[in-house]
């Protein structure tokens, strides 16, 4: 439980030394950071009796000197200004300030200047500046995630903010792990290069003292790659539990909002899907849809047995036993109905959108060759009335990515068909995707057809046959991880920052995907970590993508790119 436990330790250390009743004050970012790792009842145990957002705490003026304020904020200038105002008219008995990242000297100056009542007890940097979704998966939850696709000239300040946030997040991850890594990046991506270089500058020049930890035999590795190197994974339908929930319903900070899908009882409108607290989810989050169905049935059966034994109350002893077990029973009841509700909703969606059919073609496009058959299948699905617009778009995109060079004529036919079939389709989006993530832009061997070895491997796999048609796709990331394990990452494709070189197999590897990760990739990281005890991969991204989010980012980037192009045309 690497990342989650690091965040938990930070929070514990924050709260344990301050005795008495406390109020915890967070900002909109740290709320997510704290929420995924810590629970309300644990906070209550630490005598934290109020949790508030930093901007809403300043609305009330009522003094609460019996409470001690514990602030945990990102060191943004807005937060510093808020702090300045709040320190000048204090409401709480004591102020303990914790910031989630490096404070600038000027910021400390401003805080010191506003603390006229000398009410601040401590000022510390606790580097929990990432949302630890799972033990080996973190996200930075950057809201304007589309920025990475735009060239630098379009919006330099926003892009700078984007980069700064990523560099901050990466610095925090390594500070929390107490490591200083060697840094590599994907050569073809400008943004990956920029982030890698800025991170290196921070770790080796600006704050080299802070990052000077005990040397490891082989330094850990940070690999910064670009989402556009593998645009296929976020476009596919998913069939493993966690990934599927995110694809079909949507997970935000390990929470699922069921209000918009179907009818659900009031206490199930929002549910938590956390491997930390839910043993069933932990055991099944990487299982495929069919197996989960079986496991859920088993769980329901067990639950029924418990219910039966509870109904059978005759003696006082039975009654006492029932009351003793009641909280556990209630918990089990909540858990069972949560998973049943999720599975029911998802099977409804699968039925409605004919996802079995669609996904088969998708997987075929992503994994196997056969252009003629693929064209036919995609055309048929485009003609099918019950296939939804988003699925049509994705099919054409997958086809375009795969057969970009081979069959431009057929591709044009598909574009036209798509435009006539889907009313909402914005013209040129597929072309924009090809411009962003086409075959000329990519570094990795996405379809395994570039060198002979990969082709041979693919053929061997084809001969062996696949277990499950729907989950045969392996993200490009698992190939990358394998070559890291074997020490075969090419310096030409993934150069180092500074004069480092690969000395051997690193024990800790953080792979950061600019543009966002997917739960499919998180799954392959977790599975690989479980089977390779000597090496530990951690996956991070600027957001967690599903196809909806990826397409939204793409549309947004296209819109901005187009409008700036128009402006430039006008100005010339």
């Amino acid at each position, binding site marked *: 439980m690497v990342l989650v436990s690091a965040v938990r330790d930070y929070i514990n250390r924050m709260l344990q030394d301050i005795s008495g009743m406390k109020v915890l004050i967070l900002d909109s970012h740290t709320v997510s950071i704290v929420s995924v790792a810590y629970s309300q009842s644990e906070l209550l145990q630490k005598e934290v009796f*109020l949790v508030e957002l930093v901007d809403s705490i300043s609305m009330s003026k009522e003094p609460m000197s019996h409470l001690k304020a514990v602030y945990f904020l990102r060191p943004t200038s807005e937060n510093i200004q808020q702090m300045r105002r709040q320190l000048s008219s204090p409401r709480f008995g004591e102020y303990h300030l914790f910031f989630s990242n490096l404070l600038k000297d000027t910021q400390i100056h401003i805080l010191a200047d506003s603390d*006229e009542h000398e009410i601040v007890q*401590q000022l510390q940097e606790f580097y929990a500046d990432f949302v630890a979704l799972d033990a080996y998966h973190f996200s930075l939850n950057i809201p304007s995630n589309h920025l990475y696709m735009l060239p630098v000239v379009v919006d330099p300040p926003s892009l700078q903010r984007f980069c700064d946030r990523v560099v901050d997040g990466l610095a925090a991850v390594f500070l929390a792990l107490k490591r200083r890594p060697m840094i590599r990046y994907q050569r073809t991506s400008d943004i990956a290069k920029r982030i890698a270089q800025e991170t290196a500058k921070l770790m080796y020049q600006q704050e080299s003292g802070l990052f000077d930890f005990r040397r490891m035999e082989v330094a850990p590795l940070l690999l910064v790659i670009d989402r556009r190197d593998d645009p296929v994974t976020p476009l596919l339908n998913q069939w493993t539990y966690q990934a599927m929930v995110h694809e079909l319903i949507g997970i935000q900070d390990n*929470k699922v909002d069921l209000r918009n899908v179907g009818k659900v009882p009031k206490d199930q409108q929002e549910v938590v899907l956390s491997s930390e607290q*839910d043993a069933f989810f932990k055991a099944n989050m990487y299982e495929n849809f069919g197996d989960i169905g079986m496991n859920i049935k088993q769980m329901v059966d067990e639950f029924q047995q418990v219910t039966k034994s509870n109904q059978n109350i005759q003696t006082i*002893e039975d009654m006492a036993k029932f009351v003793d077990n009641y909280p556990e029973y209630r918990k089990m009841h909540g858990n069972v109905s949560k998973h049943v509700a999720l599975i029911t909703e998802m099977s409804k969606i699968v039925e409605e959108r004919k996802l079995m059919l669609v996904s088969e073609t998708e997987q075929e496009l992503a994994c196997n060759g056969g252009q003629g058959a693929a064209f036919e299948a995609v055309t048929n699905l485009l003609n099918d009335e019950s296939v939804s617009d988003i699925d049509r778009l994705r099919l054409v995109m997958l086809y375009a990515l795969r057969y970009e060079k081979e069959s431009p004529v057929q591709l044009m036919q598909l574009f036209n068909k798509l435009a006539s079939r889907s009313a909402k389709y914005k013209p040129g989006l597929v072309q924009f995707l090809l411009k962003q993530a086409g075959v000329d832009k990519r570094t990795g061997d996405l379809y395994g057809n570039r060198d002979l070895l990969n082709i041979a491997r693919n053929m061997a796999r084809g001969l062996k046959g696949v277990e499950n048609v729907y989950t045969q796709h392996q993200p490009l990331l698992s190939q990358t991880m394998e070559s890291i394990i074997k020490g075969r990452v090419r310096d030409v494709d993934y150069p180092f920052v500074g004069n480092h070189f690969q000395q051997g197999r690193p024990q800790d590897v953080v792979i950061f995907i600019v543009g966002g990760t997917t739960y499919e990739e998180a799954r392959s990281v977790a599975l690989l970590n479980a089977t390779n005890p000597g090496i530990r991969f951690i996956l991070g991204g600027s957001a967690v993508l599903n196809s909806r989010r990826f397409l939204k980012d793409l549309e947004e980037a296209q819109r901005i790119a187009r409008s700036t192009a128009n402006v430039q045309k006008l100005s010339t």
Partner: protein
Amino acid sequence: MATRNRTTIFRKYRDALKSVRVSSPSMPSTSGSGGPVIEMSSLLQSKHPYAPLSTDDSDSHARNALTVGLPPAWVDVSEEVSANIQRAKVKMAELMKAHAKALMPSFGDGRDDQRLIEVLTHEITDLMRKSEKRLQNLSASGLSEDSNVRKNVQRSLATDLQKLSVEFRKKQSTYLKRLQQQKEGQDGVDLEMNLNGEKSRLEDDEFSDIVWFVSTVYKFLIALNLGFSEHQMAKLKKSEHFTAEREREIRQVVESVNELAQIMKDLSVLVIDQGTIVDRIDYNIQTVAASVEEGYKQLQKAERSQKQGAMVTCATVLVIMCCVMLVLLILKSIFF
């Protein structure tokens, strides 16, 4: 898990700035309210010996008026409840010892032990009931931050109390079980001795059912007034008496178990289920924000409807008055 403590550098800056501020008090400070606040705090400092509520006197900082204040009254309640819980915990430990002692075979009749257990059980149940009652007082209506704090304090105390009562009940029921076992054993052994005094005791568990059956038959026989020797009767009486006492004890324990179950039920409303959405920190913040907004909307609506209500009644009164006047006018024109 690296951290960096910036407190020292912060203090250094703060002290430096303070000396600047003190040396030139006329200089306008950055936060507009700077001037008067300094005055106020210096005033407070001069009064310091009389300030009764400064909790940490060692702290020679100039504290301003806001930090010296009485905590609200509910803090006392919460402290009382937590003290009660502490006391109950101590009593539980004592009770455990007493239980162990009472279950040990001894030569005396163990009446002192029984009384001690009774008293302790009673006290603990009492403490819990009292705490639970006080806890209900903590709840507050309204949507202010203070009421939130109160709600959370209540929740946390309720969780503690629930844990304690579960533990207590578990102890009680194990004791009860052991006692019942002993009682059965005792009955069996006594009667067995009565029936076949010369024979050696049967230790086997398998026989206990038979023994119990025999004992029932035996009692039945007494009821039929069949003849027995004086000695046997006396012994039987004694055993009967003993059984009655044990029965009374068991009843008592059962009663307290039931009482606790009630407390438990009341508490479970307050306690957070772990792993559910209610246990999420961000969810709680959202709901608070949402409920504040909702409350504000309700208020606005109420205000609007109030205004409307006044206007509507005013209009109706006027219309009615008009009608009455019209009728009067018509009547006047007809009759005069």
